[in-house]
């Protein structure tokens, strides 16, 4: 069993809580004794996840609906979390929307939905949370981006680009908050075995979402600011980034 850490008892807000990876995070945080606030669009699923965590690990788990695309609602959502939990110590941003890259070529609505859910919305809600944590000068923000942020490829650049934007934004935020002691961690997962990837042909090195979720939280115990999960993706992406553009642009990726 995981030992409760020094920050046990401090509430954590999980955005996009119904994803497999987020569930893995929630389990690890609950084992460490953190009360949780789960946000997402699917109330029935949030309720079941909250029950599961509180039955199994005996922590207090709240939940509430949250729509990343409703930017105007973000301030109230944050207020709601802080009031319900009596404070806020950490935020895990696990919202990700792969979208349909072919549709995104034809329809701006789809392209924009991908941008809002992966970037603009994140900037809005994490920006608000960052201001709160900055004042309290303690806590953390974990943002889940993707290995797709590292290099644009024809098959998923509508998704990779906003994730790359978020990546740069988190780096800047980390720079700003460093003096306050608030940690900003970026997680770049590779392929994870979730509904997003289930049944896709030709996928390799698919990781278990519970393992990835657990390792996301374990990033708090380490000093690294940007983490590839599973770790070997760091090497893979190093290679992929180093392919010269004149060659890369001719590859079918």
């Amino acid at each position, binding site marked *: 069993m995981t030992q409760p850490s020094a920050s046990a008892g401090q509430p954590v807000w999980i955005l996009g809580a119904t994803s*497999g990876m987020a569930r893995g995070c929630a389990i690890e945080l609950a084992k460490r004794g953190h009360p949780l606030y789960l946000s997402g669009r699917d109330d*029935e699923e949030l309720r079941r996840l909250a*029950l599961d965590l509180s039955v199994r690990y005996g922590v207090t788990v709240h939940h509430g609906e949250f729509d990343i695309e409703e930017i105007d609602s973000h301030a109230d959502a944050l207020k709601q979390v802080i009031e319900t939990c009596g404070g806020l110590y950490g935020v895990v941003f696990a919202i990700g929307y792969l979208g349909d890259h072919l549709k995104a070529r034809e329809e701006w609505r789809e392209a924009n939905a991908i941008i809002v859910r992966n970037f603009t919305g994140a900037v809005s809600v994490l920006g608000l949370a960052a201001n709160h944590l900055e004042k309290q000068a303690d806590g953390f923000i974990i943002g889940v981006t993707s290995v797709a942020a590292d290099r644009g490829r024809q098959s998923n650049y509508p998704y990779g680009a906003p994730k790359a934007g978020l990546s740069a934004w988190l780096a800047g935020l980390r720079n700003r908050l460093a003096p306050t002691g608030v940690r900003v961690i970026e997680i770049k997962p590779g392929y994870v075995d*979730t*509904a997003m990837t*289930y*049944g896709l042909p030709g996928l390799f090195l698919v990781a278990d979402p519970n393992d990835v979720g657990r390792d996301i939280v374990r990033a708090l115990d380490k000093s690294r600011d940007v983490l590839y999960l599973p770790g070997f993706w760091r090497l893979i992406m190093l290679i992929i980034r180093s392919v010269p553009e004149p060659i890369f642009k001719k590859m079918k990726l």
Partner: protein
Amino acid sequence: MALAELQTQITGWGRYPLHPGRLNRPEKIRDLRLPESGGAIARGQGRAYGDAATPHDNELAVQTERLNRFLAWDPMAGLLTLEAGATLSEVIEFAAPRGFFPRVAPGTRLLSIGGAIAADVHGKNHHHMGSFGSHVSEIELTLASGETVVCSPREDAELFWATVGGMGLTGFIRQASIQLQPIDSVWVSARHYPCANLDEAFRIFEDPLRDDQHTVAWVDALASGPNLGRSVVMAGHHAVRDELPPHVADNALALKPKKERNFPLDLPAWALNPLSVKMFNALYYKTQAAKTAPFVCDIESFFFPLDAIGQWHRLYGKRGFAQFQCLIPRARAHEGVREILERAAKARKASFLSVLKRLGPGNPAPLSFPDDGYTLTLDLPYNDKLPAFLGELTDRLTSYGGRLYLAKDAFATPEQFRIGYPQFDQWLAVKQRVDPEWRIRSALSQRLGMEVGQ
């Protein structure tokens, strides 16, 4: 949005038979439902040996493994409500440190609660506790129509009992409330009784002084002649603190960390032959028979010895194997078990694992397997002669008024099934009510001719 599907070959734990089919894997409870058209069957952990969790050719199996959330726990009543994709292993990890244990535990903990209900599984304590379904207080079911209903022994009892032992054919089990029993420790106080032959084994089983909460016999199915039925009866009960050595008594509810090793490869067909199995059995008999004094052992090795080696079915190679598990009513059990063992020994069918166990009275579920009598289990590697051999064996079995366990079977015919399960018509009436078009169907329901009128 429709869930992504995986086109693949689907099979049970015995790896025979193999059917082309599609799999999907819902992560949200509302996606545990039928496709727009065509048939489907729910699939838990795929621990049924035969084709119970295998769809008709190219139809859909809905895997429940991600629907495993615990929803409520009442420690006063020992009642746990959970989604049906959760495994018994998860239940034990949750319950044991809190001083509780499933009332019924089959030989593996790597099965889902849905699978445990659908097959109405039994443990080593059936003669005292009955089967799994007898300790389920409520089931939430999604019917073929898409409607979700609740049933229990009080509320729509007919649907409840048709679902218990109903091999997934009445609906998709979403969640259930199961009754746990308090325990004092995660240890078992056990004792072995070596038996030179079948007569001795039956004598021990019937002797109330040797019986315990959990009693089962491992049988050397290759022993013949005067040694026929050579076996070791293993009896045990959940240890109370006084029975434990001091160093464990202090921490009596702490589970050992799990160490699972995977069986590394598919063995070639010749590896399991009468000689190698005979040698294994002789060695096993010698070591197990020696433990005549009471000893304390951990829950894992007492209840789930096979789980220590993941993927152990690879032992039987790529062609797979069959498990022949039958029930013979009490009055003719001794005679029937003798004949089956004789036939197996004579045919030199190398059964690696053979188990004999006394069962108690059954429950009201029309398709539930366990009932008053004895159950014998043989594991047999697949070869071309196996179907004919099992066909004969099953005919002999039915002549004793016996039946096969549907969660293990892959070979029985519609006639053999009907003789073994005389209450089928009662079950069918409920099926016709909740799924008249047989949208929920499996390779098993097709093979056994259950889909009458279709």
